């Protein structure tokens, strides 16, 4: 019986390795980390700016606040003083998270919801596709399907409502001019940068309320989560020492009322009919076939009988007068020489794709499971807002015009897509294969190109120092679709031109709204 024992050496080695591999696992970021900043300006005249939907900054009334010298106010000050004096670690975390500009977080929350709900319905065993039902949002497929049209509209309503609400807020802040608690009582401890903004109503509370109102309507299954976030946002204002309770109550009521105005527009803006039934979708297709001699068809297995929102084009625009004003020219006939040039470019590019081209295609894919191109541009806007230390009113203005322009771009793009009903490369070039999945809507023009060109116009106007950066993003986003194999060059170029026009309408409005 021969024995060989090296076990002790192996045991020691294992222990050493186990200790060595105590993986320092840093949690990956789930939101942007930023230090709450001092606002670059206060925009004391913000209450005179022109809202986009409210008839005036004072359309919605709020009660006058109690006087700064009143007993009620003094009692509220004392409550804040106690609350902000010492914070638990959870309270401090909430204050740090919400920061002094809650728009940043609500924008992130909107992006999260867009990504969470951006999944297509799964086919049944019979090969049919059920559709989300807003009356029964929790029954599969869940409502909503947050595809690019839905998401661009969601971001637009949220941002537009936040902006009108901020104009109204600034109007009342300076009308009533009641000091923020730390300016009324210098002994109150604050956990966010101080400034001279009047406290009533609380802009943070307005933002929480209007965001909760809009997002709960847009993502009904998230209502409980959203309510929790709004509650935490409002509480964080007291913990931070920057608002008293009546600031928040007034802000809450103002935010809810503004939300209601925007929800009424949303209920009647045509989105209800955007996802057409099959007969309507077929008639749109047949109309294009008769007019042009071609049509788009979904190439999935099993095929999806209806594309995404064939009538998104009929949804109410914000700034563009009508879709005809920005509709691109007719694309080349499939099979023509001009078409063949574009097809050859696609074939050559995909057959010889460089790693950098692949990276660009993936970086900008913003497809199913993501926050869509509109979400991606919201990220850039938020980064610029932080970099330039915009106050909530000015930040809301940037996000509002950006997102309204992008929804307009989506509406105009979907007009071109279903008017021209152009086949995608995988349909018109048999045997052609891509590296990105082809979405369930026609080709011409490229949504990425239109969303990005419109966003570039607006953001470059607001942040001229960063214009080159935004232009670079826009060009790369557009080219990414060619590298992915899902758009022809003429899709991208026409999309860029039309998107630039769309952005121009938003900028024209911006120039006159008082906030320049």
């Amino acid at each position, binding site marked *: 019986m021969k024995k060989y024992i090296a076990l002790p050496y192996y045991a020691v080695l294992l222990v050493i390795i186990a200790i060595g591999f105590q993986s320092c696992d840093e949690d990956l970021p789930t939101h942007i980390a930023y230090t709450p900043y001092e606002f670059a300006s206060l925009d004391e005249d913000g209450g005179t700016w022109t809202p986009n939907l409210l008839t005036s900054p004072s359309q919605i009334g709020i009660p006058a606040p109690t006087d700064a010298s009143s007993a009620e106010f003094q009692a509220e000050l004392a409550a804040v003083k106690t609350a902000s004096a010492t914070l638990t670690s959870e309270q401090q975390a909430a204050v740090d998270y919400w920061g002094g500009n809650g728009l940043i977080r609500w924008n992130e929350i909107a992006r999260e919801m867009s990504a969470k709900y951006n999944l297509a319905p799964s086919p049944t065993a019979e090969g049919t596709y059920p559709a989300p039902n807003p009356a029964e949002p929790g029954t599969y497929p869940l409502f909503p399907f947050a595809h690019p049209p839905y998401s661009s509209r969601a971001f637009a309503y949220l941002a537009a409502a936040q902006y009108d609400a901020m104009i109204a807020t600034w109007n009342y802040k300076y009308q009533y001019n009641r000091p923020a608690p730390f300016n009324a009582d210098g002994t109150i401890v604050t956990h966010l940068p101080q400034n001279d903004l009047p406290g009533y109503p609380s802009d943070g509370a307005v933002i929480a309320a209007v965001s909760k109102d809009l997002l709960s309507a847009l993502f009904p299954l998230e209502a409980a989560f959203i309510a929790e976030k709004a509650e935490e946002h409002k509480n964080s204002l007291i913990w931070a020492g920057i608002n008293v309770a009546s600031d928040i109550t007034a802000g809450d009521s103002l935010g809810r009322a503004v939300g209601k105005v925007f929800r009424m527009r949303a209920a009647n803006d045509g989105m209800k009919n955007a996802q057409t039934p099959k007969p309507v979708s077929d008639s749109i297709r047949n109309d294009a076939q008769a007019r042009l001699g071609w049509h788009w068809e979904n190439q999935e*297995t099993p095929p999806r009988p209806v594309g995404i929102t064939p009538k998104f084009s009929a949804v109410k625009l914000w700034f563009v007068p009508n879709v005809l004003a920005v509709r691109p020219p007719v694309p080349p006939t499939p099979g023509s020489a001009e078409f063949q040039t574009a097809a050859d470019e696609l074939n050559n590019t995909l057959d010889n794709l460089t790693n950098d081209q692949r990276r660009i295609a993936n970086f900008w894919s913003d497809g199913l499971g993501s926050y869509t191109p509109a979400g991606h541009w919201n990220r850039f806007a938020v980064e610029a807002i932080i970099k330039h230390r915009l106050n909530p009113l000015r930040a809301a203005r940037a996000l509002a015009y950006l997102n309204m322009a992008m929804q307009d771009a989506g509406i105009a793009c979907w007009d071109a897509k279903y008017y021209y009903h152009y086949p995608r490369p995988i349909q018109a070039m048999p045997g052609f*294969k891509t590296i990105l999945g082809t979405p369930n809507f026609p080709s011409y023009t490229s949504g990425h190109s239109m969303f990005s060109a419109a966003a570039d116009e607006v953001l470059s106007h607001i942040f001229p120092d960063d214009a080159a950066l935004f232009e670079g993003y826009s060009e790369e986003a557009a080219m990414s679709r060619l590298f992915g194999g899902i758009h022809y060059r003429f899709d991208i170029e026409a999309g860029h031109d039309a998107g630039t026009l769309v952005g121009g309408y938003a900028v024209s409005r911006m120039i006159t709204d008082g906030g320049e």
Partner: protein
Amino acid sequence: MKKVLHIGISAYLLISSFSFLQAQTPTDGIMMDNGQICFAALYTHDTWDEYWEGTLKRSNGNVGTLTRQTFMPMFTLGIADRLNLIAALPFVTTEASGGQMRGSEGFQDIGVWLKGVAYENVGTSATFSTLATLGVSLPTSDYLEDYSPFSIGLGCPDFSMRGILNYQMNKGFFARGQAAYLIRGNATIERDYYYTTHGVYSDEIDMPNAMTYGATVGSWLFKNSLKVDATYDGLTSFGGHDIRRQDVGFPSNKMMFTRIGAGAQYFIPFIPGLGVVGQYSQVLTGRNVGQSTVITAGLTYQFGLWKTEEAAPESTN
């Protein structure tokens, strides 16, 4: 032929029968003598047409049948008594029979392992041994791991620690069990936002660690010229998330499977050192993986690189 190293079977078990499993470490009880080297060239053909979307088993018309082929050269070298160095570098190609997306191909991860005998008891009728393997595998090319179901690997560093219990009877029968713990580093992809169970603003993916386990029984026959065996093994992940409904797979999915396999290795009598190996396996249960059917075939060739003064006691399997 007792000393001929057969690594083919252990290799197929590792190299990955479907998209998301990394090259693992040799799982059998065979050791090369000091100075002996064995080269292997293995081809693996892996197909599935159903997969588990989380725990929901389904097919996908836009994929059809997913075929994954692996070409893997590897060698095992006895660097000291009861200590082997193993290295392997698979080249993987993937393609789908359905849909309109391009497959993928490239060199996957290079794996290097040290395998040693920790305990050995040579009895009159059988030998019982305990072996341990430590390994590292690292991606060698810039392949895109965020390209389900075509990705050729997980794209992350992988450290493995494996223990093997081996029982070999002199008459030919053997049985062994093995388990390994796999520590994964982060993978890096080409977009900087993705959604798992929540959004992540990073191009890095926190990959779940994993464990493999299995048991094999078999026998040497015909004067040790033929080995046949059957294996039951599996993988389980610690952490990770399920594929959402109608979503695509993602490297950090919680991957699990069990499978059975059978194989044979034949040592060609008139060409000393040359062996031919074949293996078949079928995934039985799974989570976030394809239900792969895998066939592996290959050649092994062993010879002495250098001589040692004293011959080590025979440890064969």
